């Protein structure tokens, strides 16, 4: 537990969306290995402020892997080398003493850089606004146990619904596609009776919005699922495709 390491952080710095960015390398000494990666960035920022420099801007909030706010491309992987974990759940014991760690923002046309490592993921909200809901008004619901739902379906819907909307799938995809993100929401509703009534409208609206916002298309490479911090399965995309074909064929 008392181990500590020294690392070099090669970090993307970019003053604003229009500025030319560049990598700057910072050296950090004696970081305890039970420090989280974001705490390491905190330590670096603290040192920068002490020197009168501006700290590195990066998105983060809950620091327990659920809010989806943190991002970062670390050594070529969204959310770094750990699988099934977000950047905030990454600990320095994953790195070697003396290692140079490259830290970049999400790189995707649909996620423009705001500053340094921070990107604008508003496009994800817009996709959800296009149809990621069940249309009914507060107060109009029947008793919660009125419609039994098989445990298998409920559990699978829960797995799909675990998506945290971080954007790692888009960042990992060579086409910059948001298919896994869209598929997770479409699958959740496709598996539940509550989502059935407007299933056709939903899948077309969400995919249409995805295309409109400049995301690429899917070529079934599977990088998205491999890098997803919540292990959202590729089979969600198969279900999305099926939903879409069914919806289109009944047009």
């Amino acid at each position: 537990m008392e181990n500590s390491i020294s690392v070099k952080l090669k970090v993307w710095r970019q003053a604003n969306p229009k500025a030319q960015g560049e990598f700057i390398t910072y050296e950090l000494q004696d970081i305890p290995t039970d420090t989280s990666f974001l705490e390491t960035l905190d330590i670096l920022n603290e040192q920068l402020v002490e020197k009168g420099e501006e700290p590195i801007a990066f998105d983060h909030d809950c620091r327990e892997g659920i809010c989806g706010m943190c991002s970062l491309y670390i050594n070529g992987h969204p959310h770094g080398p750990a699988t099934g974990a977000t950047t905030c759940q990454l600990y320095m014991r994953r790195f070697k003493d003396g290692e140079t760690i490259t830290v970049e923002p999400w790189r995707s046309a649909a996620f423009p850089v705001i500053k340094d490592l921070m990107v604008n993921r508003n496009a994800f909200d817009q996709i959800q606004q296009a149809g990621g809901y069940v249309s009914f008004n507060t107060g109009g619901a029947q008793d919660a146990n009125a419609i039994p739902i098989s445990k298998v379906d409920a559990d699978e819907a829960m797995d799909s619904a675990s998506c945290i909307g971080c954007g790692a799938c888009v960042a990992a995809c060579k086409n910059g596609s948001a298919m896994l993100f869209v598929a997770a929401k479409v699958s959740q509703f496709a598996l539940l009776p509550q989502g059935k009534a407007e299933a056709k409208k939903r899948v077309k609206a969400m995919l249409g919005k995805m295309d409109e916002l400049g995301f690429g298309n899917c070529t079934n490479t599977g990088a998205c699922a491999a890098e997803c911090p919540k292990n959202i399965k590729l089979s969600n995309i198969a279900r999305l495709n099926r939903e879409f074909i069914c919806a289109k064929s009944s047009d």
Partner: protein
Amino acid sequence: MEENLKNNVAQPAIDSKIPEGPVAEKWTNYKAHQKLVNPANKRRLDIIVVGTGLAGASAAATLGEMGFKVLNFCIQDSPRRAHSIAAQGGINAAKNYQNDGDSVYRLFYDTVKGGDYRAREANVYRLAEVSNNIIDQCVAQGVPFAREYGGLLANRSFGGAQVSRTFYAKGQTGQQLLLGAYSSLNRQIEMGNVKSFNRYEMHDVVIIDGRARGIIAKNLVTGKLERFAAHAVVIATGGYGNTYFLSTNAMACNVSAAMACYRKGAYFANPAYVQIHPTCIPRHGDKQSKLTLMSESLRNDGRIWVPKNIEDAKKLQAGQIKGSDIPEEERDYYLERRYPAFGNLVPRDVASRAAKERCDKGYGVNNTGQAVFLDFSEAINRLGIDVVRQRYGNLFDMYEEITDVNPGELANEINGVKYYNPMMIYPAIHYTMGGIWVDYELQTSIKGLFAIGECNFSDHGANRLGASALMQGLADGYFVLPYTIQNYLSDQITVPRFSTDLPEFEEAEERVQANLDKLMAIKGSRSVDSIHKELGNIMWDFVGMGRTKESLETALEKIKDLRKEFETNLFVPGDQEGMNIELDKAFRLRDFITMGELIAYDALNREESCGGHFREEHQTEEGEAKRDDENFFYVACWKYNGDDEKAPSLLKEPLHYEAIKVQTRNYKN
């Protein structure tokens, strides 16, 4: 100082507007007689909702559905990120699907008792009453709650209850409920009823003729202040746990919106009631940024213990032995020993104090002596690892990722009994029961200004039960505020929309700007975080789990000095063009300092122990909290006196209990 507090007691009487009638009929009566706004008029009324957690998102969505025009603000890059998302365990409701004797009354009773008889009876009853609607609502939204093989909803138990009334979605209930509210919100955004402002932070509330009519918010990307007008303002901005620097709150959680309201005259109620959650991962070092909660649901199957023998504890602290080396008969399951009726499922305040008691006596189990064990050996031996992993797998993984220890791993076998690695846990700041004072309508002491969710004080008394925060946030947002706000707005229908060029907006913006300029101009040598950590240490050491008159007076002195340090030695790099994250943090820290003082003032005034507020002078011989109902059966409402450096005035809202007999809280038998 004390004299100052006492002499300042009360000018205006506090009107909580509790409706007439027996407690079970109050809400029905209220709804039957309140004033409503017709659909055509709703379109002409604007409502600002600040925050997009469970309370904020559900309120904004529901108000939008009703036809109001809603402006909705969030500090993160998307409404879905609000910290409600991190709630793990579940949400309570009085459905009685398990046929184990639950009812609206029992949920009401458990909540009042759990809150150590310091909550407002009428509010709590209403909360229990609408709890069932919440579950219906969420299932209809497509929230994938856990189910039994028959297809019906599953439940589990939480602290402070003898029934299974907690609905859950794996260990991610907050996430699923928030995404449900977010989906409803998205529908309203798409329909044009809600306008969403992301990466905006409220800096002030604008008051015109005594009514809240708008806010000044900062666009965190451009760095510019912007003005927004509305007929009513709702704040849903969460709690003040981050006053302690280290807490289970998210990094952006702050108290600035609430403090802005407080400075404009909204009373702040019961700030001393801070919840310290018993099952968090212990601190590991001074570079730590936050504490991680391990869900209370773990206490369904996990057993909390420390060694019986002090020698074993010393060996654990020295790293010479591990928890799994200590056999069953040498373990002290102190919660089961002290509280046989509730065992490991006592309420949070009780469990936290019991852990502190053992650690203070030297029985702590890690190198700092500030940890106890949470052990799954018995459950794994009884149910098998697969069943246990199915229940808590993601929590086990989370624990392993952080600590490098796998709690599901077989570690030892002594006399034929298998022992698995126990988790180490310790109490940490988690939730704040106190908050902006609101009446029964959730309206603050400023007309037209409402507060919902964790940022108000209303329903949890001196201690909140597990799985009740989600319940309260959604109750306020879906089912209470959308009704009560109409009672206020019904006579506002002829009021035209306000111009943000009015002098009140001008003035408010100038004041906010002057404050930001001041922070930039200090140009001292200390970072925001270094001062915030110092505040956190003062709060934890002197206003933490055990408080005394002396510790609180020390805290007030130290915070006063720290404010001076902040005002003279702070350093904020960069400028005000574009994003400046250090400036944003500095803005929040100023309010955390004032909040820290407020907590200490309230804790000093409340010379009794109740719920999360434990004054060491006031305890029974067995170390249990000792209330003083004769002198402190009231809500402490603090009124700002025009200057952060002046002590606030105390106003009292007396509590009246009609349905429940006030008695000593008992979890022993």
